[in-house]
């Protein structure tokens, strides 16, 4: 049996008095690439944030790499190190005096007290390698607040790749990118997943990309509506159940890619 990287059972999350995620259970095998899809307001971001301990949960259990997530999001530091989160965006207001290299270095450093110069040489090396992996060598000295959306995504990916991770959780990674940049980003993510051996859970609205690249799909609308392979979970009948009657599937046109 394959190793389970993430196990979620009967997860329920409430926000401002109403149940946003209701009794959701699923698990992710090592090196799988699973998409979380569903209409706006379906609780997708809430679900991934609760899985990471960013939002508190009302009920249920979450196990990351076999370790239970504490009620207030506690997780052993060694497990935390192996889990990375890519938010939709980071909202920096005004000039933020932090270079990309410094930002990526923060992804390398471990939790706990430490003097800034500890492991400086190894850290610098790791940052350089990470930036190279995402094709962002030229960004090292730029300020994080000066980056375009596409460059910021690269910096965030470098932040994740700077240390070996097992699980990567992405919340609408393609948000704010134009079609070409989104394509590039997913190409990069796809390559890194294979070379780094990442297990991926990603919130996505791009069903076409999900069909092409993901190994599994979770359809969420407050509760889990269906799950399985993209062919099964994204069939017209299932999509109508998820998004409602009259929903017209939106397809990007990808020359040379056949659709099932």
């Amino acid at each position, binding site marked *: 049996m394959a190793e389970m990287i993430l196990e979620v059972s009967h997860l329920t999350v409430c926000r401002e008095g109403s149940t946003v995620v209701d009794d959701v259970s699923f698990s992710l095998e090592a090196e799988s690439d699973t998409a979380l899809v569903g209409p706006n307001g379906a609780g997708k971001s809430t679900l991934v944030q609760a899985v990471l301990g960013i939002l508190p949960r009302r009920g249920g259990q979450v196990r990351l790499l076999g370790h239970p997530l504490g009620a207030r999001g506690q997780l052993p530091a060694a497990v935390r190190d192996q*889990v990375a989160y890519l938010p939709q965006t980071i909202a920096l207001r005004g000039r933020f005096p*932090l270079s990309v290299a410094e930002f990526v270095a923060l992804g390398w450093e471990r939790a706990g007290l430490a003097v800034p110069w500890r492991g400086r040489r190894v850290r610098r090396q790791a940052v350089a390698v990470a930036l190279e992996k995402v094709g962002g060598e030229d960004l090292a000295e730029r300020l994080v607040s000066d980056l375009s959306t596409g460059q910021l995504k690269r910096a965030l990916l470098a932040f994740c790749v700077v240390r070996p991770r097992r699980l990567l959780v992405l919340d609408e990674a393609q948000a704010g990118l134009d079609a070409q940049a989104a394509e590039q980003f997913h190409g990069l993510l796809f390559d890194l997943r294979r070379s780094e051996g990442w297990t991926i859970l990603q919130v996505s609205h791009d069903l076409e990309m999900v069909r092409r690249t993901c190994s599994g799909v979770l359809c969420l609308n407050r509760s889990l509506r269906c799950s399985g392979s993209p062919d099964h979970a994204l069939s017209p009948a299932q999509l109508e159940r998820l998004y409602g009657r009259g929903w017209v599937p939106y397809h990007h046109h990808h020359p040379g890619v056949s659709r099932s």
Partner: protein
Amino acid sequence: MPDSAFDPASLAQLLALPFMQRALLAGLLTGLLGGVLGSFAVLRQLSFFSDALGHSALLGISLGVLLGLNPTLVLIPFAVLFALGVNHLAGRSQLPTDALLNIVYSSSLALAVLLLSRVRSYKGGIQQLLFGDILGVSWLDLAVILLLLLGAGGYLLLTRRSQILLTIDEPLAISRGVAAGWHRLVFIVVLAVVVAISIKAVGVLLISAFVVIPACASRLVSRGFGTYVLVAALLGASCAVVGLLASGALDLPSGPSVVVVQLLGFLLALLVAPRRRFARP
């Protein structure tokens, strides 16, 4: 800087005076402290919070005077409780934080003046509270500021990773294992204590300048986080020293002189800051 206005002989005399030496040291330490804490506070949008803390400190002092206690002793616990209370309110209420802080600071100022008006015998005088009395700083005051600088500096240095992550994005910080709620609270308490301690030297009205102006000037010109904090601290310290020397030589009020020198530093930073970086939407 009006260097030509200094008379070297009188400046040397001035520097030989113990109260002036203490004042310079106090300015140096407060400037460093304000710069370091301010660099985080400004990025976390807490600059108005430090202003409100300063104003509320006046209420703490007047309570102390009214109760016949040492105002400084009352001030620290009062500032901490006040900061925690406002932080709690800001998290709970539906109002924007700046509006809430405005209510808090103007009403505590009003209450403080009303309370002080009942105590005619108070010898310090409201003028001194508003603008500070850095020339009246004692060795004990200095030791307290130094301890505070070491404590706050050590805390920020050792938790640097958590502090920066928290300043960038809270969900991202939590996902990296940062105890966000705890660190935010500790930072606010440290800020409150620093503001309370610095009131005696800098005054209620000007304390937030020490936190905000050097950090903002540094933010405009720094190319990385390390330099940002360092430049803010050095700018805070040097503006305080230059301002105090100028006030001594030109016989001007000390606190406002320091703030005017800080303003000059900020304007200089505006001039040398690369233009294109303002263009980001």
